[in-house]
């Protein structure tokens, strides 16, 4: 069992990334009851936005100097694309049957992938992403953390705190809560719900872009398809945690990440399960977990409101 601390750390790091992306799904769902399946691609464009910023900087710029700028570049790109998507792809369909915006989301997801594939220079293969130099940091003999992951370990909790404070303390945040509870009444109370919806899309995109930069730093590459699997996992995390609940999204992400890591490491050691373990089965076990949780708690781990709303 001497791998356990390391596998837990792997899971938490991976889960933080899922959680950051999942916030976008859950916020949009909480307010407009739309599963924005293009969110994975918004995440991807955030990665390319950050890469573009890096390429625009002069050669030899220190990564520490470049990282904040890349974050700004990535967040800006993702937010602008998400806002445009909301304005031109989703708003015209507001009030339409729910399947219509869902199909639009799938179409948008394919369109964004193909747009990056065909127009971003050399994006037909994976593009390499700048790296934080230096080896792993050993905490104990059996636990070491890579430098790139420190970014995620700081960014994920920080984002959660910022988001939580924003939703609870600011006017816009409270307006978001009101809109989520009852859009019609919120409108009657003078809340500009259209603006609130845009804010929800923009916030989700911003967190996705942070996750995309973390993804680039961690895996050293971004590619036009990276949003597909990451998006699917994050959606799973959002449902697992209770869709509509921002803390649920992060918790769902962490649970999913840890479950994947542990399934890879330990399932094959269970007697008789040798065939069902290993890295390639991680996704299967993650979804088994999702099904079990939904059977026992249909609203997800932290979902309370969903039962009567969705």
């Amino acid at each position, binding site marked *: 069992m001497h791998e356990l601390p390391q596998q837990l750390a792997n899971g938490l790091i991976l889960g933080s990334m899922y959680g950051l992306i999942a916030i976008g799904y859950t916020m949009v769902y909480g307010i407009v009851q739309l599963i924005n399946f293009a969110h994975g691609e918004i995440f991807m464009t955030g990665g390319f936005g950050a890469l573009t910023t890096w390429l625009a900087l002069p050669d030899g710029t220190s990564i520490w100097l470049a990282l904040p700028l890349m974050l700004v570049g990535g967040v800006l790109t993702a937010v602008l694309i998400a806002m445009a998507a909301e304005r031109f792809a989703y708003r015209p369909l507001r009030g339409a049957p*729910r399947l219509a915006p869902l199909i639009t989301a799938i179409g948008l997801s394919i369109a964004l992938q193909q747009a990056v594939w065909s127009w971003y220079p050399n994006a*037909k293969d994976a593009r390499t992403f700048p790296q934080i130099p230096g080896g792993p940091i050993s905490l104990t003999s059996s636990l070491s953390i890579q430098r790139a992951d420190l970014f995620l370990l700081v960014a994920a909790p920080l984002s959660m705190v910022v988001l939580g404070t924003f939703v609870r303390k600011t006017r816009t945040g409270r307006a978001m809560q009101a809109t989520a509870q009852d859009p019609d009444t919120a409108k009657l109370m003078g809340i500009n719900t259209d603006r609130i919806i845009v804010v929800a899309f923009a916030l989700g995109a911003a967190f996705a872009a942070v996750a995309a930069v973390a993804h680039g730093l961690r895996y050293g*590459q971004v590619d036009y398809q990276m949003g597909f699997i990451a998006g699917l996992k994050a959606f799973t995390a959002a449902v697992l945690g209770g869709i509509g609940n921002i803390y649920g999204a992060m918790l769902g992400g962490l649970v999913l990440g840890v479950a994947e890591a542990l399934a*890879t490491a330990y399932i094959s050691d269970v007697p008789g399960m040798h065939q069902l373990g290993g*890295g390639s089965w991680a996704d299967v076990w993650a979804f088994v977990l999702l099904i079990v949780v939904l059977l026992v708690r249909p609203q997800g781990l932290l979902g309370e409101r969903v039962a009567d709303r969705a």
Partner: protein
Amino acid sequence: MRHRSLLVLSATVATGALTLSACGSRGSDNKSDGDSSGTVVTIGVDAPISGDLSALGLGIKNSVDLAVKQANAQKIVPGVTFKIKALDDQAQPSSGQQNATQLVADKSVLGVVGPLNSGVAQSMQKVFDDAHLVEVSPANTNPTLTQGENFASGQKVRPFKSYFRTATTDAIQGPFGAQYAYNDAKKTKVFLVDDKQTYGVGLVAAFKGEFTKLGGKVVGEDHVNTKQKDFSSVVTKIKSSGADIVYYGGQYPEAGPLSGQLKKAGAKIPVMGGDGMKDDKYIQLANGLADGDLTTSVGAPVETLDSAKKFVTDYKAAGYSDPYAAYGGYSYDSAMAIVQAVKAVVADNNGKLPDDARAKVVDAMGKVSFDGVTGKVSFDEYGDATNKQLTVYVVKGSSWAVAKTGTFAG
């Protein structure tokens, strides 16, 4: 509750749709060269022209294009003009099967070069064989494609007589790699990883057999998925297993990041693999941490062969935007083998194409023998290349250097 079921339904539909969209075909790329006087014979190409493996696929397509242009310019087959029809399989067996049907339907197609992936080849072989259309792969290395399911136990049965390849098989490549790892690199403890694809699983099994026979130990095994990005769990297992080498059966889009993440986590052991890993993109994807990683690849290095120098010069002169990659020379030879087979068929029929040209080309292919880019090109009774040379490459800086060239002795 109506909305809840809608949520579940929409999630299911969307997941399915996204999965489908991920493997949808992305158009085909047709090119025709030369004038249309006389008979036009099309050489089909099936390779991953887009997607993760496009670096290898475009190399195949361009090399065939070059062969066709030269065959036309030199009038190798009098009265016949060759053209190329390249289809994209995105490394997906389902797309490969569709492309095969499409190529069979085009009556002017007398031979197909491709595919890159052994798994894709499995989905195409029967379609081509039913139509007696010859298929020459420059890159498939899985032994079962030519020698049947039970090749390992010595019962070699050729499943499809229209299938040929210019590449060497994993039954030779795997053991050749194992001998290098054990005898030359002095590695004794291996951790095996494969991507569950036909190619990767077969290669790892072949490596494992020879490595353990030599006295090496397998300290762990794991499997990954294609398109996987996060290998942290596998890396942790490799580190704690005490392995001194990792053998990876699969392609560079996963192998590169795996190597990079392994080195980043502090494991100073090389990753070794087969020809699917040997691309410059591998070194990039490992973020410059691939130094010392090894691959075996089929044939002698194209750059060092005298016969290949002309190919390299011509390829550069033709101005293709992508490099010829790992299989360029083999693709050129595959296309030329089809040209030679067509030539033999036409010569047997008083200078004209017979009505059952496809079946005749299949028969002629078995007897083809000429000096190609990669050496002598001819096929044995299973459709395998008679040229069984292999090379071990090692990453030095940002490129692959030759570590050893040889012929597998068994």
